[in-house]
């Protein structure tokens, strides 16, 4: 089936070429990082996790959102989603692959990467994160490929795939929950030390992931002969609506707890993000845009008229993706580290090499996504779905 990815339209080749170029640029800067050290990024003693881990956090949510198409179809027999489960699963593959790559580019000693397997540490959440992410990757690759292949051969899938599918359904929220637990169990970081961290992760994931899936489905419809279907996109939109409403609600829950209790340790981080502290306010406009935009997008999604018009739907989904990205990526990371445990404010901003390496990893992910989607769409076209 992979041979479908080797031939395509001119547009396809251009897309692949552009992605390969961005990958090459990213690789060059990553080699620079390997020789010079992580000092090439904007991270420092106080903000010791930055853009790379922010991408990991965001993408793990996108990856988990595959469950939002798989669950209704396999558990509740919502037949309409049968057309697009493959799109969700392949999106999950690309997203988890990017997550793992972001961990690798963030490591100070990637040559010692296998130590985490040589010396398993069951009390470390990072160890479990590695396990669940890799397993999820494997699960989705196997499930997606096998289901697609049986579709192409127009036979039912083999019996052993069903237990794997049923495993992937709780596994998806678990990759998310484990990643949230990376942050939520640290005693020294007041911004992250909240029980609502995992639920917030889930709600923003289920808003951002299906939004991305909607956009991808619209692109697939526009540029290929496979139409994911209007009903499917509308169902996804309903999922996004509820998820984004819950996400905004969770945010306001956090704000209430922090500001009504007036505990400085927790307030200071919100103050830095939304007001600035000690005259340092680099993230303030970004955060207001993120929360404001997210709230507006949530309200917009409530209206069926906006959801049913696919143009406004696409724009709102784009807004959701952007705002959840800023909130969960930049806001979560930096907010956790600023102010530092000594209540000093040291700001963080990514450097150009850091951004280019990030883009390079995104290019790898999008290339994998392009290739897999090409295969899926070609198969669907072949069987005239």
């Amino acid at each position, binding site marked *: 089936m992979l041979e479908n990815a080797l031939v395509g339209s001119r547009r396809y080749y251009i897309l692949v070429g552009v992605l390969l170029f961005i990958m090459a640029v990213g690789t060059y800067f990553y080699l620079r990082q390997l020789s*010079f*050290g*992580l*000092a090439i990024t*904007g*991270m*420092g*003693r*106080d903000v*010791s*996790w930055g853009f790379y881990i922010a991408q990991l956090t965001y993408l793990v949510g996108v990856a988990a959102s595959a469950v939002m198409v798989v669950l209704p179809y396999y558990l509740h027999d919502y037949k309409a989603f049968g057309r697009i489960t493959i799109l969700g699963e392949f999106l999950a593959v690309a997203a988890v692959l990017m997550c793992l790559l972001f*961990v690798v580019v*963030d*490591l*100070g*000693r*990637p040559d*010692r*990467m296998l*130590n*985490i397997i*040589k*010396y398993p*540490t069951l*009390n*470390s*959440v*990072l*160890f479990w994160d*590695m396990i669940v992410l890799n397993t999820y990757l494997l699960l989705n690759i196997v499930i997606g490929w096998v289901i697609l292949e049986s579709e192409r051969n127009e036979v039912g899938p083999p019996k052993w795939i069903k237990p794997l599918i049923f495993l992937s359904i709780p596994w998806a929220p678990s990759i998310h929950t484990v990643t949230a637990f*990376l*942050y939520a*169990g*640290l*005693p*020294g*970081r007041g911004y992250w030390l909240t029980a609502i961290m995992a639920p917030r992760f889930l709600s923003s994931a289920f808003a951002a992931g299906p939004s991305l899936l909607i956009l991808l489905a619209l692109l697939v419809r526009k540029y290929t002969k496979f139409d994911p279907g209007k009903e499917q996109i509308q169902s996804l939109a309903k999922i996004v609506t509820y998820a984004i409403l819950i996400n905004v609600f969770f945010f306001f829950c956090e704000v209430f707890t922090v500001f009504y209790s007036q505990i*400085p*340790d927790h307030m200071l981080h919100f103050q830095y993000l939304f007001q600035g502290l000690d005259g340092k306010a680099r993230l303030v406009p970004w955060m207001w845009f993120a929360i404001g935009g997210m709230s507006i997008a949530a309200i917009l999604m409530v209206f069926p008229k906006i959801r049913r018009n696919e143009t406004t739907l696409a724009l709102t989904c784009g807004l959701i993706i952007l705002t959840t990205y800023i909130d969960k990526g930049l806001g979560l990371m930096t907010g*956790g*580290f600023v102010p*530092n*445990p*000594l*209540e*000093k404010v*040291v700001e963080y901003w990514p450097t150009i090499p850091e951004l280019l390496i990030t883009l390079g990893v995104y290019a790898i992910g999008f290339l994998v996504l392009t290739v897999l989607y090409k295969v899926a769409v070609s198969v669907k076209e072949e069987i005239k779905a």
Partner: protein
Amino acid sequence: MGINRREFIRLAGLSTLFGLGGRAAWELLRPGQVEAALKALPKPITAKRWAMVVDMRKLDDATAQRCIEVCHRIHNVPDFAKPVNPKDAVLPEDKVRWEVKWIWTDPFHNAFPGAHQEFTSERVHHMNFLLLCNHCDNPPCVRVCPTQATFQRADGVVMMDMHRCIGCRYCMAGCPFSARSFNWRDPRPFIKAEYPDYPTREAGMVEKCDFCAKLLAKGQMPACVVESKGALVFGDLADAKSPVREALKANFTIRRKPHLGTNPQVYYIV
């Protein structure tokens, strides 16, 4: 007849497993080589639970600076303000970002955030507290390390295994006291005088105070304790007659962020 496919695969899998047990096999082949008898060093200083009491009444700024200087010198801690080659000079904001410090000073409201009040005594207001890794009894950094590169020894010292650290910096996120530093780049261009009896580190690993484990193993007190000339008291909490227990019995002490439950073992007499 020959073995069937199932048997072959089973055999292949089993032999691979045994092959992977290479080191164990090597041990079997050379018994005693790796098992060379390990006897404890003739005279290390041992304890059941090391702790430190910082007597801020006796510690002035000059002494604190000397303690910091000796610690950083004998452990080859880089100083980004003083490159070996002036061409390697770094920007001030990079100096802040890349700073590696095992022990340092900070005023009261930074050392004890949350305990700060608007009106404090003049003395405390101007005091620069000597801060270092607290070698907590319930260390969150050890809990989160995915490779056990940072681990807690039986005598309470929270150690760093520089050979195993993968540089994930989870421990830095986990430390509530900002006691850990990462080598964002190669430190050697910023080590003016290489101390011969201690290695440097490379880019990509986390480091912090190790309660001078090497000196303790050779029967000496930690360098900062010696340099402080009595302001820093170091000893075994489990020994009721140790200097730390005496100091704790005679004085009211505070610790940094005790409410977090990490059980820090550096106590401050203010």
